[in-house]
């Protein structure tokens, strides 16, 4: 177990920022943390990065406790915060050299590592440029290189793609895929949810400090399958079709779009019920030429799950 979070809780007075979070991640897993602003993602990452003490609970990174052995934990993690600054008057290689020295790497080792890291993040040609003159995307990549300088086993990346243009986001995603192939355990939070779905092995959804769903993308999407949205296209006589579907006990929230000859409704039945519904519709001479399930991406999953949590 590379990351083992046990009952992590953080309270500020009466406000609970993180509520009994328990989570385990194996080595090499890419874990996406999904949640609205203020849900508790950054608090979790701050605790894992030894910047914040939990009110209760503990987290083990490669067997080291963030509460009892913070210095050992720092050797295991590379942390990239959501907002960060740079030292204006340092050049890119000096910036990495400073952090390399801060992790206690010998100068000779740093001299070899720095060009390799700059190459990894596609910044080789900016090696002797002042950090302040780099674009936002380049600074993000440089910060990622910095977090890798001591070869950590776990990467904690808080919104690494925030504020980046589409091209820079794609570049960042490619680098993260490369890091994944290197076997790093990566914890990443992002607002760009479909991007997380593409590259994450596991997703955790957090809301109001509570982990409300955890699993791979398919598992989380399955949680929504109790009610799916079905779209039926008919040749004509939309009202007849509407009356037919309205009679079905599993159907709710019917919407008719005349321009598209389309009826959409929520369906709570099982797969066999759905087969029977289609069979009955054909026997009732409903001129159906298409029946599809609306695809739900991670964003829909997130919206549905967090809405459900709010309603409780």
């Amino acid at each position, binding site marked *: 177990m590379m990351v083992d979070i046990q009952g992590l809780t953080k309270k500020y007075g009466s406000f609970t920022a993180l509520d009994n979070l328990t989570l385990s991640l194996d080595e090499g897993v890419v874990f996406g943390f999904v949640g609205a602003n203020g849900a508790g993602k950054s608090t979790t990452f*701050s605790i894992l990065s030894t*910047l914040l003490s939990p009110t209760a609970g503990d987290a083990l990174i490669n067997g080291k406790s963030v*509460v009892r052995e*913070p*210095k050992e934990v720092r050797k295991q993690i590379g942390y990239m915060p959501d907002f960060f600054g740079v030292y204006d008057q340092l050049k890119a290689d000096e910036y990495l050299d400073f*952090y390399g020295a801060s*992790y206690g790497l010998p100068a000779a080792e740093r001299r070899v590592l720095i060009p390799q890291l700059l190459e990894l993040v596609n910044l080789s040609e900016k090696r002797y440029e002042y950090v302040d003159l780099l674009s936002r995307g380049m600074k993000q990549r440089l910060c990622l290189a910095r977090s890798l300088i*001591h070869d950590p086993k776990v990467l904690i990346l808080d919104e690494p793609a925030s504020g980046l243009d589409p091209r820079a986001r794609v570049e960042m995603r490619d680098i993260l895929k490369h890091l994944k192939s290197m076997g790093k355990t990566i914890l990443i939070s992002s607002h760009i949810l479909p991007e997380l779905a593409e590259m994450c092995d596991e997703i955790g959804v957090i809301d109001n400090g509570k982990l409300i769903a955890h699993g791979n993308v398919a598992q989380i999407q399955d949680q929504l399958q109790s009610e799916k949205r079905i779209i039926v296209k008919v040749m004509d006589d939309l009202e007849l079709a509407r009356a037919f579907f309205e009679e079905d006990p599993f159907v709710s929230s019917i919407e008719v779009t005349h321009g598209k000859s389309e009826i959409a409704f929520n369906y709570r039945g099982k797969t066999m019920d759905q087969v029977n519904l289609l069979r009955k519709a054909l026997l009732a001479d409903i001129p159906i030429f298409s029946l599809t399930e609306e695809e739900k991406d991670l964003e829909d999953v997130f919206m549905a799950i967090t809405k459900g949590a709010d309603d409780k």
Partner: protein
Amino acid sequence: MMERFSNPVLLKELKLRFRSFKSFSGLMFYLAVLCLFVTGFLLIYTQFSGTGFFKPSDSFTMFAGLSVIQMGLVMFITPGLTAGAISTEREKQTLNILLTTTQSSSQIIIGKLLSSVAFLVLMLLAGLPLYSLVFLFGGVSPSQLITIFLFYLVTLIAIGSIGIMFSTITKKTIVSMIATYGAMIFLGGITAFLFFVGLSMEQMFMYSGTPQPNATPFSPISYFWASINPGALMITILYPEMASSLESVVGVSIPVWVSYLIFYVLITAFCLFIAIRKLRANMKTNR
């Protein structure tokens, strides 16, 4: 071997400081003030002529004036260099990244302090050629110069520590700056005021005609205020006879410099301790 003792924060800070135009303009301003004073002093004492007469006693006066001005500048510049040491990192959002490295809190704080001290020592050394003029005319012993420089060093390390402490415990540089200058004003000005208030009360008490089991009840307090005042110590270093007068007035025979040294070393230790404890304020442990 060298790497074991190297401090990355110190090296980085020195690099950043010497790449900044602000540092060199500050150094230029500092030397300009000293040059202006020395030139003005020489011109006044030689009556604006090349044939004027300059006695060794005048040379000592110039040394005393130069030392006081330098002390004032050191007290003025040190808070500016140290009061933003940690809060600027916090404002620029570089502190969190620094705190996730394996550097200890004490390494970071000491690195910040030493980089400021190194720059201030450079300033003092840059002013040495002006002191050579004093030696040209005589009247001052090298031991006096060394004592004065040691006094500067103790004072600037203590003020630097106060600045770093405020910089660590406050979120904004401006607040830290105000607090550090406030502490400076207290040490440099208010202690002198309190010393004179103590002396006056002593006088009033002595002439009030009431029975006096203890003839000088305010003396130890007055002595304390004098002993922590940098101006008072400078006077006693430059004019040792003043030290004897002070001792006879307040009735305490401990040399002022001893009390000063103890107090400022304690202040330094206390401020650095607080700064190191509070750097990772959100963590229960300070490792």
